């Protein structure tokens, strides 16, 4: 299983994502933003950081970079895409996952360890997560308040596209509606989340819960036949 990690100018978690993907047993390669070539990656990760400085609006400028056309095609063909933090913002700006990430309700950058409930375990991103387990990992962002208009939010919930929610005791760090920390696209193949699973890939660093997400993907496609169920 090959994992490609997109490097935008200003990405700063690309090396973390490459490192974690290797720990999960994948072959991991960087993908340069100017080259619309995914190098045969089965999973494309849009990493955290401040792509293009996050100037104008977080994620918006990255959406126009050449590699995003390839990512779009990959997703349209049923390929797997994982957007983490800034990568989630890019996916949302590109319309590849629903919603928008507003400034944190506190108006501050928030670096905290949070706990995530996993709403579904039948997705390529969560199938290795044990039933009932809460995942501990850090958030680090200034604009992570998940927003959708009410009616769209109801549809999102009804279609099973909410994948992760912030859970007690740490709770919701940014004011996200419905405590939403991560969502799927309608096809269940593209996932965006604000917390950083790639920084929670080793017990030495405080948690290896995040590795479960990457291992889910690596294991679900290890035999070359992605086993995926579409959202409800």
């Amino acid at each position, binding site marked *: 299983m090959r994992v490609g990690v997109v490097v935008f100018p200003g990405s700063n978690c690309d090396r973390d994502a490459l490192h974690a993907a290797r720990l999960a047993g994948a072959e991991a390669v960087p993908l340069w933003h100017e080259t619309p070539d995914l190098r045969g990656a089965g999973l494309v990760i849009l990493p955290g950081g*401040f792509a293009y400085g996050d100037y104008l609006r977080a994620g918006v400028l990255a959406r126009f970079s050449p590699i995003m056309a390839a990512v779009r095609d990959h997703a349209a063909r049923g390929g797997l895409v994982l957007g983490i933090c800034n990568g989630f913002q890019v996916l949302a700006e590109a319309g590849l996952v629903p919603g928008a990430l507003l400034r944190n309700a506190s108006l501050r950058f928030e670096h905290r360890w949070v706990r995530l409930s996993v709403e579904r375990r039948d997705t390529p991103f969560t199938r290795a997560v044990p039933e009932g387990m809460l995942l501990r990992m850090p958030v680090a962002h200034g604009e992570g308040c998940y927003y959708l208009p009410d009616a769209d939010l109801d549809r999102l919930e009804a279609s099973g596209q909410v994948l992760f929610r912030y859970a007690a005791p740490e709770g919701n760090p940014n004011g996200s509606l419905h405590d939403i920390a991560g969502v799927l696209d309608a096809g269940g193949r593209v996932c965006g989340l604000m917390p950083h699973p790639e920084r929670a890939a080793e017990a030495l660093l405080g948690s290896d819960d995040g590795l479960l997400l990457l291992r889910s993907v690596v294991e679900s496609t290890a035999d070359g036949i992605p086993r995926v169920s579409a959202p409800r």
Partner: protein
Amino acid sequence: MSASEAPRVIPAAAVPLHRQLGVTDFELDEIRARLGRDPNDLELAMFSVMWSEHCSYKSSKVLLRTLPTAGPDVVAGPGENAGVVSIGDGLAVAFKLESHNHPSAVEPYQGAATGVGGILRDIFTMGARPIAVLDGLKFGDPAAPRTRHLVRGVVRGVGGYGNCVGVPTIGGELVFHPSYGGNPLVNVMAVGLLEERHLTRAVAPGPGNLAVLFGSATGRDGIGGASVLASATFGEDDPSKRPSVQVGDPFAEKLLIEASLELIQRGLVEGLQDLGAAGITCAVSETADRAGTGILVDLDAIPRREEGMAPFEVMISESQERMLAIVRPQRLDEVVEVCGRWGVPAAVIGRVTDDGLVTVVTGGVDDRGMPRPATEVLAAIPAAALTSDAIVYDRPAQHPTHRRLAPAPGAPESASDHLPVRGMDPGAVLRGLLGSPNLGSRAWVTTQYDATVGSDTVEASERAAGILRIKGTSKGLACATDAVAGVGAFDPYLGAALAVAECSRNVLVTGARPLGVTNCLNFGDPEKPEAFWQLSEAVRGVGDACRALGLPVTGGNVSLYNESPDGRIVPTAQIGVVGVLDDVERRVTPRFRQAGDIVVLLGEAVPGLAGSEYAALAGSAVEERLPSLDLAREAALQAMILAAARAGVLASAQDVGGGGLAVALAECAMWGGVGARLSLRVSAEPAVELFGESPSRIVVTVRPADLPRLAALAAEHGIPLEPLGEVGGDRLQIELVGGGAAGAAEERGANVADALDCALAALRHAWEQALPRALGDDEFTPPPGDG
């Protein structure tokens, strides 16, 4: 700014230009002597920034020469952009502390942000990838609206830059003291990791090589900013001391880091220098002088952001995020390609010469970098005259008329501190200390800093060392920064020596071996003999402590003129220490581990409460009663704790620092989530043992079976050892025995204290609420559970 509003070097009628630029008549004569003629206006402007205190260290050089700089692990010492120490396996660590005090007072967000940017450039200029930031912040009364404005802006600025660049902020300290009210201190320490073979120096060797400027274009921002601002007392209503603020662009810096490291790793540069204070002038003169060469700069080739810039503006602009590379001509295409791929503009602005001069020309150079016939020479100054041969002062130092020193070790103690101990409730005092602005939780700050980017952060800590692992090895790095302003206020020598001892102790208690020291010396106007005396005493203190502990000083920074209309700051020697852990899995943390572990105090309290947080809370202690520091005993304690950590004896360890033993124990308990039942011998003044900050003490826990080994190590090193009790429960209970305990001394009617008994939840509540309450932020939600 339109061209017509642009600053010009035009002297007002009565004041000669050199004085307007801050150059004294005496210094002008010195400049004439070095040039053998009068300088022209451009040359004078270049001298004025290079001979500023900030760039020349003209007042502190004679003192800094006395510091020990040699050590077995030192790869690069003072004089380079950052110190570099070896950690084995072909790897090395670059680290340095630097101040951005005055810019932060003018514009806290940008001042702090560009401070982070500047120190990061010092690190990656050496060929090291920045892996950690620590901040040493000092402010005045937290209740004052101006302080709150500064704290909010500075913390946002440190975070805003570090978070975006992707370097974790893993530690530091935030201290409030009234003397910083008009002049906050923003000291930032950066740490980087490099392969030793990639060590790069800021030199311009090889006449004929090209000088390539890459990064942001040059604008008028920060003209004379850091250099002039940081070299004069900061007045509230002096617009002439407020040049345009430097604005940081962390996105540009991130690209600069990647481009620079790729250039270095591919061997494409002969030398690399970042542009900071005094801009291009500083970069070209320092690199040329270090290499014994000269540099010819083609003014017209320098990319600019604004039109109509005067030559002096281009030459001394402090626009951020710029680098100077020295490149062999045949590698130029590759350099341009690398910069282009990272979106970083690059331009050849000159070439290395063999004449020892910094020459500035206009009218162009040809393809080989040679001046064209019509070229006009605007400036020609010996590079050394701007740097290594710049003016040096041996300033007069004078003891303040009102001056106290700590008692010599063993000297008889004078009388009472007049501290309220009769009927004292130590639990209430402990809650008060934990709830005070200086000792409460720093979560309000640290939640604004990305501490985990980079996937190397093992521990990010507010009151202990931060720990990183080194990928691909079993090793770890422990980093800490400390100052002891409370004591430094009374005795700058002792304050500086204590800071070295405390900072290295904070690194040692993790089990790491300290490798070197960086420092940032924040003092007042060196032209005032009392302020210069404070500086000289502090340097003596740093030197004595480093020699006693076997630590080399590998670099640092001096920030003078830290005065405001409200007065001078207290002498503040900010110290940074980096140490190496051979096995990061075996690191020791302050957290109590498990019930039944034995709590042990290593070292013993000596009288002296002056300068302590307890004294600040209780009123004030007379200043004769400063804690003494016995450097030989400190060295013995440090050797012992390192041996104990390596032997795997320690379950936890915490330095006894601000707030004394009781606060250290409370931290171990709160962070570990488990209490302790203890018993402490106290003298006639229980506050000394409970809350005194006398140095050379560490509180550790061991498994019961390991106590004999710990005792043997203590005996071997001659360290007093006192088992206090055991870990367990959800309260911190300290029964007092001896002269000052209520039970023993009730009948005597003086100087007695009751037992300390506090629920951890109550301690945690006081600790968590301290800083948000002090800063008037009632919306902050502290993170649960974490230390």
